[in-house]
């Protein structure tokens, strides 16, 4: 597979390490009342769609950036690649 890195252009997936669902960005608040339940869902419950999936890839043999890649799990078509840090900020993770 080829991942079109937003900063570096197309790179072979062999340079990357896969993590999983981009929902892993949404780490719950440890002080929430139901923190245990939220962390349980965060840690263990995943959607496994046959189709479009937002997922985290790490450019380990590259610029060390984490990316959010939108990939079709049936065809491997990649329709969007974003810098995960930007995604995290847009999802309100700025402290």
């Amino acid at each position, binding site marked *: 597979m080829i991942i079109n890195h937003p900063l570096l252009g197309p790179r072979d997936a062999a340079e990357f390490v896969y993590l999983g669902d981009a929902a892993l960005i949404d780490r719950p608040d440890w002080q929430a009342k139901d923190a245990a339940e939220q962390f349980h869902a965060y840690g263990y419950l995943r959607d496994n769609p046959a189709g479009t999936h937002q997922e985290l890839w*790490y450019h380990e043999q590259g610029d060390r950036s*984490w990316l959010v890649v939108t990939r079709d799990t049936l065809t491997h078509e990649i329709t969007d690649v974003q810098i995960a840090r930007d*995604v995290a900020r847009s999802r309100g993770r700025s402290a």
Partner: protein
Amino acid sequence: MTQINRLGGGLVNQGQTLSFTFNGKQMQGHPGDTLASALLANGQLLVGRSFKYHRPRGIFTAGSEEPNALVHLRSGAHQEPNTRATVAELFDGLTATSQNHRGSLEFDLMATTDLLAPFLSAGFYYKTFMWPRAFWEKLYEPAIRMSAGLGRLSMQEDPDTYDKGYLHCDLLVIGAGPAGLGAALAAARSGARVILADEDFAPGGRLNAETLEIDGMAGRDWAAATIAELAAMDNVRLMTRTTVYGAYDHGTYGALERCTDHLANSGGKPRQILWRIYSKRAVLAAGATERPIAFGNNDRPGIMLAGAVRTYVNRYGVTPGQRMAVFTNNDDGWRTAADLAAKGVEVCAIIDTRDAPAVCDVPGARHIRNAGVVNTVGRKALRAITLTDGQVIPCDGLAVSGGWNPNVHLTCHQRGRPEWNESISAFVPAGDLPPGMAVAGAANGALTLGAALEQGRNVANAQIEDLGFTPSRDTPPRAEDEPHTGAPVWHIAASTKRAWLDLQNDVTVKDVKQSYREGFRSVEHMKRYTTLGMATDQGKTANIPALAIMAECTGKTIPETGTTMFRPPYTPVPLGALAGRARGREFRPYRLTPSHEWAKANGATFVEVGNWLRAQWFVRPGEKGWRDSVDREALQTRQTVGICDVTTLGKIDVQGRDAAAFLNKIYANGFAKLAVGRVRYGIMLREDGICYDDGTTARMSENHYVMTTTTANAVLVYRRMEFARQCLWPDMDVHLISTTDGWAQFAVAGPNSRKLLQKVVDPDHDLSNEGFPFMACGEVTVCGGTPARLFRISFSGEMAFEIAVPARYGNAMMGVLMEAGREFNAVPYGTEALGVMRIEKGHAAGNELDGRTTAYNLGLGRMVSSAKDCIGNTLSRRPEMNLPDAVKLVGFRPVDRTKKLIAGAHFISEGKEATMANDEGWISSVAYSPTLGHSIGLGFIKSGDTRIGEVVRAVSPVHKTEMRVEIVSPHFIDPEGERLRG
């Protein structure tokens, strides 16, 4: 024997003669020949025995689709089985032997198998060798393996080398026939970066095999001129002897280049290269494969596909026989007759299944309409054919044409399904191609020359326009379209003898019908039940006729019946090529510690730790076994001082205004309040609360920490920290960079460690217990000004330091430390003594941090701060992970001190049965403690911390042993930690 079937002409250089042997027999050929063409030239029609029935077989095709002519090529360690003679390029001194027979090829002792054919029909394997069960491995399998099969391995290590490589292009053109050449030429003239790959050593495809013309030139001359033009262009990479074998994601293709297979000697260069080609667009111009018609005994040597006959006649100047017949259901077969006749070969008959007039005039040939071949005569060579009307025609060669199948294989590598094209009675690529791919020429169903040329050019132009290139306005090459109509006939129903579909796997029409009767009707089931379409040729000549037979049985159409899935590779790829350089010592890179050379010179035995080579122990004269060395190293360290290279531990430089806050998130215990100049031990949890790494982190300055990780997890910790930095806390100012390789770090441990270091560290640094207490750290200089970092940390339990110098000084530093330590009788120690001492001290390591244990299990539960958020904190508090009877890390010693504990043994209370239900825990680490003089262990047992002194059984069902062990503190030595603080 002379070349009795050599006609002359073609693309072989008859001015030069090459010698080769087949089954020890000396023969001759010419440059430009394949082994197959040379064998035919020499009149060697019988080249092998069939897979199951040991039937005599000859050469059936002239290309990579060959099912029959598989040989052992070369000899000794270089011998390669299952080489297709049809693509093996002839070289001087080539040796080939035939496969799959006992005794000689002519008198195969296994040929009696053919008489047993009634018992060996489809699925016989599954039905016959059922019982008794004990016979499966000992009797049935060896017997089957011996009688059935292909070639034999040399059983020696492959002496050749292989390589891999990476190529990039705008347009990849697969196949250098008319469509591919037209495509490559159009794209190249526009300025696009083009790779043109062709499996043949002579590009040109069918142009080399036909007598057709382009722009008034002979097709082969046009091909040669086009190739010369392409070869001269900087933006074109012409790759012959290169098979594009797979279409992968996002325009990536796999290709195998055969670099030295055509040479007598590789000259030390890689034999083959496995290329990964990154293309923006691709044109598949893979051509088409002719298909046979099934009739009785249609597998005899001398029966050949009609297009292949033209290849041998026109390209190689060889005729497969002296008196040829042609059997066809289409116009194309007629050209074979015409080309043979033009070369002066006798064509005795053209048998056309159609009731149609002659397609062309073939001097001397009888045209027999509306007829078919039902049987053939001649065991080791064809002697005659019998037609549907009963007449027998003597002949020594039969060219068969059942029409052409586009080579759609690569269009299907990403689950594309071809669609049926009624007009050519074949599957053609449908719309669901791999992204970026377009198909042109015969591969796309354009089976005539004019159409193929035009399509190649148009498809390539569309592809490169897509990429922003402007197609060139040159005059396109032109050619006529040759007659090509046909009427599908798959098998001659009047045949009563066995009619082969798959020559390689010995599958007949009857087998497919039987598969249908027994319920294996899906093509995928039929394939597996009959083995049709398996092995080296993957049924290139067999699949479609077999589908047609299955369609007849089921009463469905062929498109309704469907095809099996084509998967890579298109043609076989040797495992050696897939392995590339990754063999033996080159399987993976090695990482060497900075003191590697010193260790090598001082008796070290090395152990692989991940990619690292670490000194495991250092042998001294007189030591009889590893234990002698390890015991000495551990004892001497505890008695005086020992030195160990610990560079392999991961080192991560953490800097930033938020470095402290960040480490508080990463570590379960607090780091924000760690004073500058101090080190702290920390544990890291996964988000699920399991402990996954530990180590020390030193605060070098307000915003600068130096973290160490375990050797094994260095990469993983870094990765997870980057995840936390970028994805979880994206607005923290914190920066990470690995410095693992940058610093050579040595543990200097033992009561004399300070005294030793005082000789090495420059005197303006105070190393006294007051000036540099336990868990201190700082930047120092050594040996007169070389920068170094010093840490007062201990893994051994002794007073100990770790000293780090820039890695370039590491080897010298080891020597200096040993030299400075000479007066203290300092000892170098390896990873074994390191392990012994950490077990004696009760420190957890990888065996304890095994992905199942929590801080609570490790006895470190109180380190998990409840006052802050950190990764793993919340889930580590789940009640189920904090039960009172959870396993706890404790020490163990055998009640009978002479016994050796076994790592992995499980604990059972005394008086209870050794069952899973009574399992209370396990031993994780064991060592012989030279300090205590007996075996010791660390392990986990339920409520361990409250059971000190209790005796339990340590049971190892694997070793079939058990022993009584006493639960003790994990700190076998210096439980109060007085030594390390001294």
